[in-house]
């Protein structure tokens, strides 16, 4: 009967139900979009690090993020690292911002990522046109399909310039986006150095691949002692540092999380308001229940069931809209990501929000005087 009574109370006043559901729906969509954007941004920031093949990153001291590492490492550091027990390979990477000159005029900022495929350190992935090996052609680069317009090119074979050097689109990837809005341009290690005009042996990072069974933390300490002027970071540390730089130092992540919290607060207030007024309207009925001998727990369960039902209906409607927004954002510069984990978390958040919203209504009925049934 608890669920029956909760359903009847909810649907008794359709307008109030609609207001409740709109509150939850608004909240769910806002939180889903904000957290989806956060996940999307996070993915863009860490993809390069996650797709890399190496347990440790050797970076110039103070490198803030993947894109901002400088090109300061020399073969001396690489050889010192190779001499450390447990190191299988040390793969050089060159990463830096560079100006891309569009064939039709104008320019845009890009991030050159130079790495040799045979080193198996960091290769372009999700190649949908052309091939990885075609990048090795004298002027070859790979770009992401979503940035073709920004780069002023249409597809494979189109030509542009980085600095004063001509490059040709030889491969196209899909889904490799950049949080900085500067598209990644994949090329070989030496061509990257050429495009960026840096000394032919300098690198931005050294990716350390280790012998299986090696104690990573121990190796890291060893490398730190051998290379006092650089930093040796685990993959997780470098990922966190990049996230910290782009999401938190810039305030972008705080804005996204803040938006999500705001959505939750607004939803909570709306649901609390409607649940409270619903409870107030049904106060005589709850007093009658109390007079009939119902425990206060029974009445609390009715209110919580109302809150729970509102949560489930609001969640389903909110998620439908949120998923439409997710699909629409797929090919935008900042795609929204919805994962099963986020969907489950949103459901739990909705239940929590509605349960919190029920507190004021529960406090109201806790003070109910069953003697009021005689004063009607």
């Amino acid at each position: 009967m608890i669920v029956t009574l909760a359903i009847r109370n909810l649907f008794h006043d359709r307008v109030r139900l609609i207001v409740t559901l709109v509150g939850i729906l608004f909240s769910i969509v806002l939180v889903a979009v904000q957290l989806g954007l956060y996940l999307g941004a996070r993915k863009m920031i860490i993809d390069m690090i996650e797709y890399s093949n190496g347990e440790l990153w050797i970076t110039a001291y103070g490198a803030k993020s993947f894109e901002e590492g400088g090109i300061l490492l020399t073969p001396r550091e690489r050889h010192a690292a190779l001499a450390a027990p447990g190191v299988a390979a040390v793969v050089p990477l060159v990463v830096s911002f560079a100006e891309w000159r569009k064939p039709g005029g104008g320019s845009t900022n890009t991030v050159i990522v130079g790495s040799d495929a045979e080193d198996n350190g960091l290769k372009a992935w999700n190649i949908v046109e052309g091939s990885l090996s075609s990048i090795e052609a004298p002027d070859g680069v790979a770009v992401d399909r979503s940035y073709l317009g920004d780069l002023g090119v249409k597809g494979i074979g189109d030509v542009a310039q980085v600095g004063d050097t001509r490059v040709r689109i030889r491969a196209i990837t899909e889904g490799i986006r950049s949080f900085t809005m500067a598209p990644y341009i994949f090329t070989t290690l030496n061509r990257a150095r050429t495009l960026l005009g840096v000394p032919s042996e300098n690198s931005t990072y050294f990716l350390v691949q280790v012998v299986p069974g090696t104690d990573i933390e121990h190796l890291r300490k060893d490398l730190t002692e051998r290379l006092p002027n650089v930093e040796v970071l685990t993959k997780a540390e470098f990922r966190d540092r990049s996230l910290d730089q782009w999401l938190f130092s810039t305030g972008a992540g705080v804005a996204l999380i803040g938006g999500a919290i705001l959505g939750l607060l607004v939803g909570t207030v709306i649901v609390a308001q409607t649940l409270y007024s619903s409870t107030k309207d049904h106060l005589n009925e709850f007093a009658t229940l109390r007079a009939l001998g119902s425990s206060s727990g029974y009445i609390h369960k009715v209110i919580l069931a109302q809150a729970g039902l509102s949560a489930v209906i609001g969640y389903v409607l909110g998620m439908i809209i949120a998923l439409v927004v997710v699909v629409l954002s797929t090919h935008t510069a900042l795609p929204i990501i919805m994962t099963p984990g986020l969907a489950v978390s949103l459901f739990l958040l909705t239940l929590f929000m509605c349960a919190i919203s029920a507190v004021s209504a529960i406090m109201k009925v806790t003070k109910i005087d069953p003697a009021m049934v005689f004063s009607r």
Partner: protein
Amino acid sequence: MSHPVVLEARNIVKELGEGAARVRALKGVSLSLRAGELTLLMGPSGSGKTTLLSILGCILTPTSGSVRIKDETIDGLTPEQLADLRRRHIGFIFQSYNLFPTLTAFENVRLALDVRGMGYAETVAKAESALKAVGLAHKLRSYPRNMSGGEQQRVAVARALAGAPSVILADEPTAALDSENGHAVMALLAQIARDRNHAVLAVTHDPRTHAYADRIVRIEDGRIVGEDRRPEANKNVKKYDITRKRKANA
């Protein structure tokens, strides 16, 4: 043969309000209710009828004095313990019926059984049986808004009856009803007291109800001022014909 006492109140004093507004609503009331009897509690407005009903129904606790229902006393019980006592021993009938407008007649009765923690099958069987007993077997799926005042009050009687309480307390059960329905409900309460061995107490102003009472207790200014026990021969012992009105309508 005298019926057993199921509810006994002794020297009940109840003070209401705070400070200068504090008033003594009951000034040492003693009253016993016996199984199988319909007792009327009559008195003018402000005499303490409803306060006494609330105390007998374990909704209010007395400032002093004691209330015993069967072998249990309400002294020192918490609100939750009082609710438990109400669940097990008391059935209420209210002046304004207090039915849940969003529930059908059947669901209204079943709800009163559900709060007692009964299982689904038991609540269904008992709710149907109680509604049948008050002549509303044909109104199981009707909502209160689609029922007459008399029918609604009979649903309230069925709700009070369904849990087989020791005591049924009715607050002005005929006040909102026309003459015919008022008589029907009183006949029903008298029949319930007699046939089911319940103690029934009805607070009322309505002189039409006298004929159905085994006993009439008068209260004024917070005190019992008189009690009439009606001889069996003078009572309106006509059995309530639950089908009479339906036949008339047909």
